[in-house]
């Protein structure tokens, strides 16, 4: 997981032009500055997480990227095309899934996909094959010929995802796709997005479920108050090292031992649960499970009364919590 924000280029230098490039984006609604300086790069073939509090401008940003809103200022490139001046070319390459999926009253799930196939100018047979394939992908084959309006919220959400994929977009914009999905569907979504990214699709996905983004996103962009912000880099571990929580019955014994061996640690910020008095935990970077096993063995051997060792909350969540800006 690498965190990209501001003018910082993505960590691995891109060989192909980035799927999404945004610089200095501004957009206001009357007095509300929904976007107030957004810079981001979403790499081709990677899943980029778009994270931010309610009202931070995530949906607005995705609307600009999808070619629905004119930005007041700034530069946008979708697979090299400007959605304002070169709308059709950009839209042909973009798949957009809004946060709420509207349905037509009496169309079946399959007809929805066929209609969008036609709207993207796919030949009829191609559209039919694609619709069947997508219904299979999102596990809606059983519901293919029922009216889409009676589908459950999660089923509608999955249909909305299929709809965004009809024309095999190069750039996929998903606005809270996981909301309303059951755990199984969330896993499916994660696998699907990873597969799409592996096949070269640029995926930008907004969500509030950070643990989930943690598992599927390669990069993350933080929005706050309409601006891309860079979380406090000190808290973000280097690539490959995740933070683990080490708890012991005696916090003093634990910290004394850690200091004696020269380990880098920081106090647990209290999300660790409660134990007997004197007990406590610390957070420290651990590079993989083997290191964790070694750490545990060393601690036990040194006589530290270890009570538990587990991966701490995800990097995204911690980075998120360090953001200065408030919810609005």
């Amino acid at each position, binding site marked *: 997981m690498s965190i990209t924000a501001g003018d910082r280029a993505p960590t691995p230098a891109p060989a192909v032009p980035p799927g999404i490039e945004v610089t200095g984006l501004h957009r206001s*609604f009357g007095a509300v500055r929904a976007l107030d300086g957004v810079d981001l790069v979403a790499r081709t073939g990677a899943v980029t997480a778009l994270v931010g509090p309610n009202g931070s401008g995530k*949906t607005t940003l995705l*609307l*600009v990227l*999808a*070619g*629905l*809103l*004119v930005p007041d200022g700034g530069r946008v490139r979708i697979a090299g095309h400007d*959605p*304002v001046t070169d*709308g*059709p070319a950009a*839209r*042909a390459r*973009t798949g*957009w899934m*809004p*946060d*709420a*999926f*509207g*349905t*037509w*009253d*009496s*169309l079946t799930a399959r*007809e929805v996909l066929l*209609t*969008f196939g*036609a*709207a*993207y*100018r796919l030949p009829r047979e191609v559209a039919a094959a694609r619709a069947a394939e997508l219904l299979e992908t999102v596990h809606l084959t059983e519901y293919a010929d029922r009216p889409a309006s009676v589908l459950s919220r999660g089923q509608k959400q999955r249909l909305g995802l299929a*709809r965004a994929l009809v024309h095999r977009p190069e750039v996929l914009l998903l*606005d809270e796709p996981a909301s309303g999905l059951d755990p199984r569907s969330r896993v499916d979504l994660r696998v699907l997005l990873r597969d799409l990214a592996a096949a070269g699709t640029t995926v930008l996905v907004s969500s509030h479920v950070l643990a989930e983004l943690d598992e599927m996103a390669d990069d993350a962009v933080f929005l706050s108050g309409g601006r891309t912000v860079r979380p406090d880099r000190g808290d973000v571990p280097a690539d490959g090292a995740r933070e683990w929580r080490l708890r012991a019955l005696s916090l003093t014994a634990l910290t004394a031992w850690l200091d004696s061996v020269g380990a880098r640690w920081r106090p647990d910020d209290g999300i660790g649960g409660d134990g007997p008095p004197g007990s406590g935990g610390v957070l420290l970077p651990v590079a993989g499970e083997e290191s964790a096993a070694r750490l545990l063995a060393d601690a036990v051997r040194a006589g530290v009364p270890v009570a538990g060792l587990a991966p701490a909350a995800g990097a995204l969540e911690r980075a998120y919590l360090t953001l200065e800006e408030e919810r609005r």
Partner: protein
Amino acid sequence: MSASWHGVRTVAVLELRQRVRSTRWVVALVVWFVVVGAITALSWAAIHGLGGGPGVDGGLPEEVFTGPPIFGVVVFFVLFLGLLVSPTLSATSINGDRNAGTLATLQVTMLSPAQIAVGKLLAAWVAALAFLAVSVPFLVLALAAGGVPVVAVVVCLVVLALLLAVVCAIGLGFSALSPRTSGSAVLTFLSVAALTVLSPVVFALTVPAVTQDEPVRVWSVPLDYDWESGEPPECEWRTETMPVFHTERTWWLLAVNPFVILADAAPEARQAATVSDPLAAIRTAVRAARTGPATEQDWCTDTFGSFTSDGTPVAPAQSPVDVPEPDRSVVWPYGLAVELLLGAAGLAVAIRRLSIPQRRLARGTRVA
């Protein structure tokens, strides 16, 4: 061309599928059929009842056709119902989709704003044509009553179809302008009402404004004529000052009325002497309004020309006043042109409002 037609068809099929599947649609068609049928039956009964029924002694003479009045009533009623129904077919099609969250997903596809707008208009129009199609049997029935040329049925259907297309396009425009479906429906009904009701009302209200006292040459009975003499008067020219209605300045107010357009465009029926034809009556009136007042009037011939005081007919005195030539110039092309322009404006507004990316949003609305 074929690509753009493909897009229009995609949208139209989407819209129609929605409508056809709802049972309300079938119910509406059935209600329409029953109501138009009832009106046809009533007007049939009323007109044949005038004289006790055809063929019966004392009934209408053989050569009087009852077709024109029945046809006129039915065609006007179909237009009336069509004007009521058409706004509901299109007036919520854009803002309704926007509220349902389905419009933006269509807009981001390869469909152009024009394709979406024309597709929606086409779907609404096809639905309106379905209502017209249901009315055709009753027009044919009027045809069977005699006196109505077949071409009149065809012309009336074409004009009806165009007028309903215009109403659909106006509704589409309002549905693109107004964020709320109730707002656009009300605005569409108001504009239809303005065209149909307001147009004759405003025409009537402007009559005083176009009325002037003017000298008019009249061919009249001499002022010193002895009314007891029993002799036919020797009429003479006189100049009288009287109010003159210059409706030739305001006739266009009537011309934009859909009912006037329909009446004026309908080919003349073979005129029957005693039974009135509503289409012909309106046609004559509006053409007279357009012609304006005559500069010379004959007050003599009709009043005194035919009879002496003891009731014996005499040959009418020769009047020097030209018999006013019935105006043959048609009014409907002007009215229809105005209506089509209004429809085009509605469509243009819809296309403009469907263009993305959007710069301005209506207050209190979101794209998604």
